[in-house]
C-alpha cells in the first residue's frame, strides 16, 4: 500500500537550534502511527513541517504523495489537525463551530449539510448541536474538535496530544472513533504521552532530543537490542512492599534500572548477578518479563543520556 506520510532525512533548524534532526519514516495509508517523546523534543515542529507550515532546512517529506515544500496549500486542504487546545470557539455553538470549519475548508451548500450530518452522527454530538462549546465537558469538546478536524473528509489526520487531561472513558470513546476512521482508510499521526495509547497504535516512533531513536511495532520495540542490552534481563519482582524496596534495590550491584508498577518492581538487571539478587531477596518471586513500552523508552533515553558527553 502507498505511504500516506513520508519523511526522508527531514531536518528543521531554527537558527543554531536543531528541532528535528535527520528524521525518516513512512506511514502506510490507514495506519494509526503513534509518535512519542518528551515535551520539546520536536513533535509539534515535525507536524507543522509535514503540514507544510514550515519549510524544512534539509531533507524532504510527502503527504499523500504531495511534496511538503511545493504543495503546502493542497496539503492543508487534505489533512485534518486537532491539537490539545482543540481550536474551538467557546462562544459559538456546536453547530456554528462545525459550520465555521466547513466554510474554512470551502465546503458549501448541500455537501456541507451532508458532511455536517455525517460528523454529527459519527461523534454522537448531535444532541448538543445548539449548546455553546464552553458548556461542553472535556470529552465532548474533544469530540467536537474531532468533528471539526474531519469535516472536510481528510485522508490524513494529525492529532497533537488529543487526549491530554481527559478521563479514561472519554479517551477510549475517542480512540474507538480513530479506529473506525482508520478502518475507512484514514491515516492517523498521533502524538501522546500515554503508553496505553501508544500500545494501541500500529507502529510507534520515539523522538528524543530531536532524533528519532526508535521506530517499529510495539512488539518490535520490545525486542530492540538497545532496550534489552546484552547480558541483562528484565525482571518483575513481586516484593511485599515494592515502594519501600525501590531505593535499596537501585543501589544493589548489577541493577541498572528499577521502577514500581503497582505491586511489582520492574528492574533491568545484569543476568550474571540475578542469583545474587535472589539471594539478597530470599523468598521474593523474581520472574523474567518482556519490557513494557515505557521500559523501552526509558532504557533508550538513559542510553542516549549516558552516551552524551
Amino acid at each position, binding site marked *: 500500500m502507498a505511504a500516506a506520510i513520508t519523511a526522508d532525512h527531514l531536518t528543521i533548524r531554527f537558527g543554531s537550534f536543531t528541532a528535528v534532526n535527520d528524521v525518516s519514516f513512512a506511514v502506510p495509508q490507514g495506519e494509526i502511527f503513534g509518535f512519542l517523546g518528551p515535551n520539546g523534543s520536536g513533535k509539534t515542529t515535525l507536524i507543522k513541517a509535514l503540514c507544510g507550515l514550515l519549510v524544512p532546512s534539509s531533507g524532504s517529506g510527502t503527504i499523500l504523495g504531495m511534496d511538503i515544500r511545493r504543495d503546502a496549500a493542497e496539503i492543508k486542504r487534505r*489533512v485534518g489537525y486537532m491539537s490539545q*487546545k482543540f*481550536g474551538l470557539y467557546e*462562544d459559538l455553538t456546536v453547530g*456554528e463551530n462545525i*459550520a465555521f*470549519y466547513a*466554510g*474554512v475548508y470551502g465546503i458549501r451548500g448541500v455537501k456541507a449539510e451532508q458532511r455536517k450530518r455525517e460528523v454529527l452522527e459519527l461523534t454522537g454530538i448531535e444532541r448538543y448541536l445548539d449548546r455553546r462549546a464552553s458548556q461542553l465537558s472535556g470529552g465532548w469538546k474533544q469530540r467536537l474538535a474531532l468533528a471539526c478536524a474531519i469535516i472536510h473528509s481528510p485522508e490524513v489526520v*494529525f492529532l497533537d496530544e488529543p487526549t491530554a487531561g481527559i478521563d479514561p472513558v472519554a479517551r477510549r470513546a475517542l480512540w474507538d472513533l480513530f479506529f473506525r476512521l482508520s478502518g475507512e482508510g484514514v491515516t492517523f499521526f498521533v502524538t501522546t504521552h500515554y503508553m496505553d495509547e501508544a500500545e494501541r497504535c500500529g507502529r510507534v516512533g520515539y523522538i528524543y532530543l530531536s532524533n528519532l531513536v526508535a521506530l517499529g511495532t510495539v512488539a518490535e520495540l520490545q525486542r530492540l537490542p538497545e532496550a534489552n542490552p546484552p547480558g541483562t534481563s528484565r525482571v518483575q519482582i513481586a516484593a511485599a512492599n515494592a515502594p519501600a524496596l525501590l531505593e535499596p534495590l537501585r543501589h544493589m550491584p548489577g541493577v541498572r534500572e528499577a521502577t514500581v508498577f503497582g505491586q511489582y518492581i520492574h528492574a533491568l538487571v545484569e543476568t550474571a548477578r540475578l542469583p545474587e539478587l535472589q539471594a539478597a531477596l530470599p523468598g521474593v518471586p523474581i520472574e523474567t518479563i518482556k519490557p513494557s513500552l515505557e521500559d523501552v523508552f526509558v532504557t533508550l533515553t538513559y542510553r542516549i543520556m549516558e552516551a552524551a558527553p
Partner: protein
Amino acid sequence: MKQLFRGLVPVCHKEALHIVRDPGTLFFALLIPMLQLFLFGFAVDTNIRQVATVVLDGSHTQESRELVQRFEASDVFAVRGVVLSTDALYDAIRSGKARVGVRIPPDYARSLQNGDTATVLVLVDGSDSTVAAQAVSTATGVALRESLAQVLPDGQMPVDVRPSVLYNPATRSANFFVPGLVGILLQVMTILMIALSVVRERERGTLEQLTMTPVTPLGLMLGKMIPYGVLAFGELCAILAVMRWVFLVPIHGNVFVLLALSLPFLLTVLGIGLVISAKARTQAEAFQLAMGTILPSVFLSGYIFLIDNMPPFFQVISRLIPATYYIRILRGLILRGAGFADLWRDATVLTVMGCAAILLAARLFVKQGAR
C-alpha cells in the same frame, strides 16, 4: 485572487457572531469613546479668559482706575484683589492666587498730565505658557490703546485693523478640538477591538488551528477587518452626530464626502491593529501597545500643537502618523468646508499607509506560522 483571500467569508461571519454573542463588550466598546467625547469635549477650552489678576494701585486717581477698567474690559483679566505693596504682588503670584499682577506707580496720573512716559509694571506667571502669552499680548494692547488715546484725543485711529476670523468666527475651542477628538477616539477604539480579537484567538489556540487550515493570512485579516470596520464606521456616525448636535460644531463640508474620506483612515487603523495583534502574545500586551499609539497621535498629529512650530525632526515624525492626515481631513471638511479636491492627497496617503500596514501584518503572520 480567490485563493489569496481564502476563508474571508466564514471568518467574517464567525467574527460577527462573536460580536453579537458578547453584547457587554460591544456596549463598552461603543460607549466609552462616546463618554470620552463628552468629557474631553466639554473640558477643553483653550481660549484664555478671566485670568486672576491683582492690582497695586499706587496712584489712586481717576486715570489709574480707568486703566484697571480697561484691563478688566478685555475679558482676559479678572481683578480678584488689590494689594498694597510690591512684595504682596509677587506673593500673590507665587502662591498661585493670581497669575497676573499690575502695578501702577504713584506718579501715573501726573506723568500722563505732564506728557511723560508712565511706566506700568505687569507681572505675568510664566508657568502656563499659553496664559502668559495671552496676558502679555493683551496687556500690551491695552497700553497701546491707552497711549494712542492720550496722543489722539479725538479718538480717531490712524490705522484700524479689523480681524475677521473665517470658519470659526466665535473662535470656539470646541470647533477646533472636537473634530480632532473624533479621529483620536475612533483610532483607539478600532485598534483595540481588532487587535484584541486576534490575540484572543492566539491565547485560546484557535489561531494555531486556523494556520493548519487553508485560510490565508489575508483572508483571516480581511475577514476580521470587515465586521470591526462596520462597527467603527457606525461609531464614527454616532460620534459625528454628537459633535454636530451636542457640541453644535457645524459641518461646513459634505457629510458624505467626510464619511467616504474616513474609510482610508479606518483601513489604516485596522491595519495597525493587525500589526499589533501579530506582535502581541497576550491581550494585556496588545492593550499596552494599542495605548502606546495614543500619545504620539495626540501630541504629534497637530491635534493639540501646531506641526509648523515643531522642530524639523518631529515634523517628519508627524508625517508618519496617520492621525495627522485624518485630523487634517476632519478639520478641513468640518470647519473650512473643504471638499474632495482639497483633501484627496491626505486620503491617498492614508490609503497607502493602510495597505502597507495590512501587508506588513500579513508578512508577520506568515512568519509566525513557522514557529
